């Protein structure tokens, strides 16, 4: 079964990559964050296909490599919807498909303000072996991952997650604050978490020449995230916390590369997380699908 999963996941990744190579693309102006969100949604009709990896060290157990693929679609200028597929490899154990997520982000205000809110709603259907650490909430700690894949995968998790994203752009800097509440629908308490981020392009002016290595194509920053306990025990006690520099490189070909070394800030956190990701934005995806089914747009 494990080898079958591995083959299917590889096939999935290969097919997704192939699909990325074919259609037209536009220069993305993507933020560098892995965990935090800013208030910018996907442009309407565009599809972004993303692959992300997280390598993590594990105290008293096997290190792991978790990965996910995202399909992010701009339904309207005020609504972005995303579908995720998650998997992981725990070294000396196995590779697993760990579940899927469906995420929606809504922009309630028509205009740009000093602080811009975005509402986030996500449904997760995953098993207990999920290790992508796309968010940290409640009392998620390093030792949760000591359970073997064979055991952890038996736990099925249906979770709803809500976020309030507050983001500002000031003198080229983006500052964002995400507050998160999540609930496992199988009678667990509400859990809380947060993510903070700050980032800025290396140059604010665009070059008059087409270039790949121009400073405006690089966006650097930092993000910090962690759990805040649950309804019964709110606070930092027995939670994990991380600090991670982030860097994104938006290539003129439409590809974006991201990298982020993350560091655990307490003994409940994984000591080190190495994240990287690659994505490509496909413009006019919605119109083309519409045409495919006989639509006019």
């Amino acid at each position: 079964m494990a080898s079958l999963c591995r083959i299917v996941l590889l096939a999935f990744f290969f097919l997704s990559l192939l699909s990325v190579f074919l259609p037209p693309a536009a220069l993305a102006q993507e933020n560098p964050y892995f965990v935090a969100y800013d208030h910018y949604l996907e442009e309407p009709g565009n599809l972004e296909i993303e692959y992300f990896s997280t390598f993590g060290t594990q105290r008293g157990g096997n290190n792991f490599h978790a990965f996910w693929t995202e399909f992010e679609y701009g339904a309207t200028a005020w609504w972005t919807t995303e579908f995720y597929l998650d998997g992981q490899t725990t070294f000396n154990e196995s590779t697993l498909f760990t579940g899927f997520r469906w995420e929606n982000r809504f922009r309630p205000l028509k205009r740009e303000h000093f602080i811009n809110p975005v509402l986030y709603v996500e449904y997760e259907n995953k098993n207990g072996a999920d290790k992508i650490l796309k968010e940290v909430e409640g009392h998620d700690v390093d030792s949760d991952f000591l359970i073997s894949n064979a055991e952890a995968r038996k736990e099925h998790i249906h979770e709803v997650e809500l976020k309030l994203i507050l983001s500002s752009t000031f003198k080229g800097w983006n500052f964002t604050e995400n507050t998160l509440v999540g609930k496992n629908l199988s009678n667990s308490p509400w859990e809380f978490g947060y993510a903070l981020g700050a980032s800025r392009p290396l140059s604010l002016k665009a070059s008059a020449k087409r270039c790949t290595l121009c400073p405006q194509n690089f966006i650097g920053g930092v993000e910090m995230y962690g759990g805040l306990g649950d309804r019964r025990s709110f606070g930092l006690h027995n939670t994990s916390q991380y600090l991670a520099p982030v860097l994104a490189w938006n290539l003129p070909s439409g590809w974006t590369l991201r990298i982020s070394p993350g560091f655990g800030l307490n003994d409940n956190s994984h000591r080190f997380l190495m994240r990287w990701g690659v994505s490509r934005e496909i413009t006019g995806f919605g119109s083309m699908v519409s045409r495919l089914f006989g639509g006019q747009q």
Partner: protein
Amino acid sequence: MKVVVVALAVSTSFLAVSVVLAQSRNSDTPATGAATQYDPAIYAELQKAPEKARKRTNPLQNDPEAVAAGAILFEQHCAECHGDAAQGGKKAPSLRAVEVQGATPGAIFWILTNGVVRKGMPVWSKLPEPQRWQLVRYIKSLGGPAPAGESPASKP
């Protein structure tokens, strides 16, 4: 096992759709640079710019490279909807129209910053302020309707 099959089906669908899309990509764009006619009401958003925003002057007005940089930015971020020569497309109006060309740089900058979210124009404040001003310089440099067949490459 069921989930794995679903994952494979989803990815295969994406592949199939992508192939078809790649075949049909060019049929979306008007063949010439001739301006498309739009209901003047569509430009009413420009009038909603506050007085203070409208009066802002372009800090890159005298930057000799601003138009060229703006042309590249336009191609990367705006041409998909507004057309390669800003003549307008199915999704967004011409930027060569008198309503746009007659608007102040500050009003155009305000629209870029705030978008017209309910009508499909995204917020572009994710582009740093100097890049939005470079775009304004380029848009204002377009003048009237484009001659037939004009491409962005023939712009500054």
